[in-house]
């Protein structure tokens, strides 16, 4: 298959560069020779049909695959040109402290709202109550949740609605000032209103972090992302500015997917 994914050169500074990334679940070759850059302070969307490897790709960035035996990476992901995330000597814990993640289903801890967000700081041994209060309020404000929960920070996170829980998870992922935040279909379990509020906060987040988001919704990708990558069967088929990928896709498969013929 000839892959032509050379859109107009992306000019922004790369926050991360993926070079010849291959990933294996045991003997299953899930990602095949991926090359891509993640432009700093922008939203990059990953789209593609179910099972094409979006989640797998996303979880390479914070070494989540290390948690399970039999998984293997090849190639590299350079962070700021100087740290290879996949490098043997790089501690996955260090990577996860710099790159945080929001999962497909909200997964708050069965603790209070406050403690949920606080945990992002507590892992680092932060104990200063004043500083934590400040950071937690800030994170909850950025996640557009503060006004809804400021009077019940000690209540269980499980009392929140699904959309609120997801925003809580976003606050938890943001509280320790990560450099990149990974989102795996963060709105797929939410209703349109909750989805809209999360999409809105995504665009404000850009100033603070670099975002990589998996989404099944083409409209969502078009609405919120600056760059879009289209994946198919473990390969990166096309990557470029969102308006280019959507308006003049270079590849037949991309065009088919975007127009709803595959997937």
């Amino acid at each position, binding site marked *: 298959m000839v892959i032509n994914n050379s859109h107009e050169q992306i000019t922004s500074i790369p926050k991360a560069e993926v070079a010849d990334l291959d990933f294996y679940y045991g003997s299953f070759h899930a990602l095949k020779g991926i090359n891509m850059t993640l432009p700093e302070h922008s939203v990059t969307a990953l789209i593609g049909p179910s099972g094409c490897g979006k989640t797998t790709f996303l979880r390479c960035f*914070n070494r*989540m695959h290390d*948690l399970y*035996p039999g998984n293997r990476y090849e190639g590299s992901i350079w962070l700021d040109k100087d740290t290879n995330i996949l490098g043997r000597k790089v501690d996955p*814990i*260090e990577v*996860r*402290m710099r790159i*945080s*993640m929001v*999962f497909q*289903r909200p*997964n*708050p*801890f*069965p*603790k*209070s709202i406050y403690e949920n967000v606080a*945990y*992002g700081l*507590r*892992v*680092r041994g932060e104990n200063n109550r004043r500083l934590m209060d400040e950071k937690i309020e800030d994170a909850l404000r950025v996640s557009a949740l503060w006004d809804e929960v400021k009077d019940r920070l000690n*209540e*269980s*996170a*499980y*009392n929140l609605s699904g959309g609120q829980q997801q925003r809580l*998870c976003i606050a*938890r*992922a943001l509280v*320790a000032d990560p450099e990149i935040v990974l989102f795996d279909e963060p709105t797929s379990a939410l209703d349109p209103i909750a989805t809209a509020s999360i999409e809105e906060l995504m665009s404000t987040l850009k100033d603070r972090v670099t975002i990589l988001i998996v989404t099944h919704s083409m409209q969502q990708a078009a609405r919120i992302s600056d760059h879009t990558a289209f994946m198919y069967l473990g390969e990166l088929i096309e990557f470029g500015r969102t308006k280019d990928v959507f308006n003049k896709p270079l590849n037949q498969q991309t065009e088919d997917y975007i127009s709803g013929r595959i997937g």
Partner: protein
Amino acid sequence: MPTTNLRKLRTNLNRRKLINSGFAFLGATIIAIAIIILLGLTLKMAFQGAERITPEFFTSFPSRRASRAGILSAWVGTCLVMLVTAMAAIPLGVASGIYLEEYAKKNWLADLIEINVTNLAGVPSIIYGLLALGLFVYELRLGQSILSAGLTLALLILPVVIVTTRESIRAIPNSLREASYALGASKWQTIWDHILPYSFGSILTGVIIGLSRAIGETAPIITIGALTFIAFLPKSPFKSEFPFLSFEWLQAPFTVMPIQMFNWVSRPQAAFEINAAAAGTVLIGMTLGINAIAIFLRYQLRKDIKW
């Protein structure tokens, strides 16, 4: 919908509802029978022994005269032995469970260990007694002491604690583990901050089941040489001068409640049977006491965990 179809649907529905209520009735009956029998036996014993349950009964040593005999050495022995058992079995069992579930590689060795641990839970307790006699009493020279007895019972309930710990840990949704790791938590932080607190309640249940089994065990304790008649107490674990704790009691000879009961039941005089019934009632009370502690602990922890 045509009426015939609707009628058919309703007949079918009624039949399924009948089966459902039939089973509910059956279940309720069986539970009622079980509870009535259990309650009957307990109450019969309690009534039989009631006249002997006086303060003196708890503060007197055994005696040849039934009316003067008490359970002082027995309940103190049981408490101390259970203390040793809990101190040994809980940390060891919980740590093993955590290690096997969270750290150990999942391979044939892990499977082998799992099968063996599960099977160990079913080994007759007298076998543990023989093992302990050889290991603790003779090999390690711990003597026929409270320490030996506590360790023997700890060995006996260790499989239960390990198995319940593993199952409680396994029941925690993986998404919570991933949430913790994704924030940069180490394995130990994930275990300590999340896995243990969230599974504490179920682990505690396993520990209580184990301790409740241990408190009533006679065979392994007799095997390692508990005395049946003992008229003094072990040295107190507390003392007035620094460091305020003393461990001499660990080496003391001892007896425990079930052995005292067994001893009384095997006497020919009817008066001793009343003593046995009274001691049995106290033993049940002690078991309930352990459960009460568990409920209290679980309640305390609930305050922080908000499912």
